[in-house]
């Protein structure tokens, strides 16, 4: 088991190298001149432009730029963005906000998705089940920015239950609405996944045997149906944590959250390769770790799976 975890960690090294190389190349290939973004409409003198190029290694060939970036990463110096701020500081600033948002969204989708999915699955074909299925289908099919603006307008502006936008502190109550919007689509998927899984397990032979043993219905449902149904759901949730961290661009835009998504969006527009690559690399590492966590959780949920 320990050997397995160690090997999974060692796998992160090639993933890190490959991801950064690919990302660096993609940003490098973006059309447009990065210095133009710094200098703005007025433009800079050729001398200033040249010094900017030298400062950000833009005068070097691609390989050199990449290797210099790697050297920076290994010496814990990610450099600065074009505005002169330390990239490490930016990451330290925006990641906690996004992480808070993502975890809140994850808890929302997990709790509500599993509970609704369980009851829908146990009442297959009944009115509750049909309603929930239709609603979840609507949630999946309507684009997230439509739902986002709609909920912002209804709960933030009309009913004024909460602020329509998030301030710099990003407190729990402020993040509640964005978190629900962010988790809404995954909530629908978790619900449907749980429902299908519950229906399948409820007809399993061992559930009938558990009933025949004289167990009460609530015990049969929680111990024998729910736990077995959690295996595919856990896989989905773990993979979703990574997606929520990186995929909050639209939601953060709507609610003006100063998080990873917003920062990344601005960096891409400015062609700031080191910022983009650094943030995305952190996201990739989070994704890999979340997957490792899922695999370990998977083995815990299903004892037939053993890693060696």
């Amino acid at each position, binding site marked *: 088991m320990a050997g397995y975890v160690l090997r999974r960690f060692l796998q992160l090294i090639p993933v890190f190298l490959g991801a950064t190389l690919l990302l660096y190349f993609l940003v490098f290939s973006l059309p447009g001149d990065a210095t133009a973004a710094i200098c703005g409409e007025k433009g800079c003198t050729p001398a200033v432009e040249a010094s900017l190029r030298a400062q950000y290694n833009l005068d070097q060939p691609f390989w050199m730029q990449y290797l210099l970036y790697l050297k920076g990463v290994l010496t814990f110096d990610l450099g600065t963005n074009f505005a002169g701020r330390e990239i490490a500081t930016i990451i330290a600033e925006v990641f906690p906000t996004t992480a808070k948002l993502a975890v809140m969204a994850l808890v929302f989708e997990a709790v509500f998705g599993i509970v609704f999915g369980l009851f829908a699955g146990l009442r297959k074909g009944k009115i509750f089940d049909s309603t929930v299925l239709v609603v979840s289908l609507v949630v999946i099919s309507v684009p997230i920015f439509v739902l986002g603006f709609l909920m912002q307008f209804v709960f933030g502006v009309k009913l004024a239950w909460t602020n329509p936008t998030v301030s710099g502190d990003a407190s729990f109550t402020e993040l509640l609405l964005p978190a629900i919007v962010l988790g809404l689509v995954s909530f629908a998927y978790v619900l449907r996944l749980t429902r299908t899984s519950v229906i399948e397990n409820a007809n399993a032979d*061992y559930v009938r045997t558990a009933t025949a*043993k*004289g167990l009460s219905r609530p015990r049969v449902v929680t*111990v024998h149906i729910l736990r*077995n149904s959690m295996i595919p759901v856990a896989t989905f949730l773990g993979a979703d944590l990574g997606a929520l961290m990186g995929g909050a661009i639209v939601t953060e835009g709507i609610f003006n959250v100063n998080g990873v998504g917003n920062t990344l969006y601005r960096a891409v527009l400015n062609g700031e390769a080191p910022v983009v690559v650094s943030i995305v690399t952190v996201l990739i590492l989070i994704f890999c770790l979340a997957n490792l966590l899922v695999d370990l959780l998977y083995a815990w*949920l299903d*004892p037939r799976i053993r890693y060696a």
Partner: protein
Amino acid sequence: MSTHSMDQSQPLNGLPKPLLELRDLAITFKTNNGDVPAVRNAHLTIMPGETVAIVGESGSGKSTTALAAIGLLPANGAVSGGSIIFDGEDITHASEKRIVELRGSSIGMVPQDPMSNLNPVWKIGFQVKETLKANGLPHTAKDIAQVLSEAGLPDAAERANQYPHEFSGGMRQRALIAIGLSCRPRLLIADEPTSALDVTVQRQILDHLDRMTDELGTAVLLITHDLGLAAERAHKVVVMYKGQVVESGPALEILTNPQHPYTRKLVESAPSLASRRIEAAKSLGLEDSDELLAAHPDGVRTENVIEVKHLSKVFKLRGALGKSTDFKAVDDVSFSIPRGTTTAVVGESGSGKSTVARMVLGLEKATEGQILFDGVDITTLDRRKMFNFRRRVQPIFQDPYGSLDPMYNIFRTIEEPLRVHGIGNSKSREKKVRELLDQVSLPASMMRRYPNELSGGQRQRVAIARALALDPEVVICDEAVSALDVLVQAQILNLLADLQSELGLSYLFITHDLAVVRQIADEVCVMQKGRIVETGSTDDVFDNPQQEYTKALLAAIPGAGLVLPPEVA
């Protein structure tokens, strides 16, 4: 339980009163095509401590009847008439609460398939513990170990900490028996408790179940499709057919003097009983058992179509940290199949018999040894020659549900080998398929249907037709009839025998069922742990087994201990 306590089955002035009584029970299933009656007018009485068997083929309603007694009908099924009386109390429409009270503590259940009836994510001990706890019994680790060891599970205390997937089928069934009997129910419903197990394991488990229920005075409702097993284990037998009880009475009476035509058919075709019939016939001097069963044509035992010499197969098992251990699945096996005859390889699961079949088919590489087909060693053939060899040796597999492609209709399934081997044009191929369907007694109208529209027996006929499409010389049947009901099994065995005499086929028959061997094989090889421990003609092996293992296998055939009057044959 082997002694017949007739006094118990006749109520004398209300004493003793029946433990379970089903009166005119009717069960209906709601389906998309309206209500379907599954059971009609089922009558059944079980006295305390008595064993009653319900016998019937799949779909006869035997399991449904038993499950109704414990309130475990599927969601779309319901009791639509009659009553269920347990210990004087009418529980036909009892509340959920009352039924939960009865389950486990008053009525226990041992389900059919040990592989699917234990929850894979919980330890065995946990699954025993929750049973004891739910029924208000002490549930310390000691109690759990006690319950498990009673059911014959060795090292129960350690075993309780293992998960179901770490158990063999037989051990799982012991665990399920432990659970079923853990709360000392007065009635145990045993639904085909051993049909998924090898005969020797089956015997051990049934013996153990007998002993336990005897000691505890538990009444047993045994559900089985095997009449021989029912007769051996039960005081009373109830025969069900198409949802109705067609006959019931003391076990031996039903066996020796069946009244209903269906029961008669069942008695005739039960393989375990057929073997006894042959012995009975022999003892009367009727040596020619060929008359009883379809025979191979005479005078064709000229040469060996297949000769297997010193065949071995070693599998590498992956161990911890990349270390691998060798596992010898097949160890120095030699036998031959004379042309036009049937050789059977018998053994329990894990004996290596299927690996032998796979190697003879060329699906698995032999580690050592030779397989001579018409004198040519097939282990050294190149791909092209192998392709031609495949044409002459064809398999029929166990699972008629799994071995036909559900997306191919019957015509395409049977035609495919012809097309692959580039035989004929589309017209002549269609003609051939029609002939083949005719040979296996299926109507030509079957061609456009899909496997899911066919019964198990029909599918196995399709599998046989597919195997015969290329006019093979050898057909390898890997448990070809094991998944079928006895009646269908008898039909398929007869078909195979007919085809053999018609086409001069040679069969290699892989099976765990000795009763089937007796009906079809000329030569028998008994395998144990990868080795052939005994070999000889079928009659020699059956009449005069040399090895302890063979004797144990023979003794394990259900119904072997029955004394059957010869006139039954």
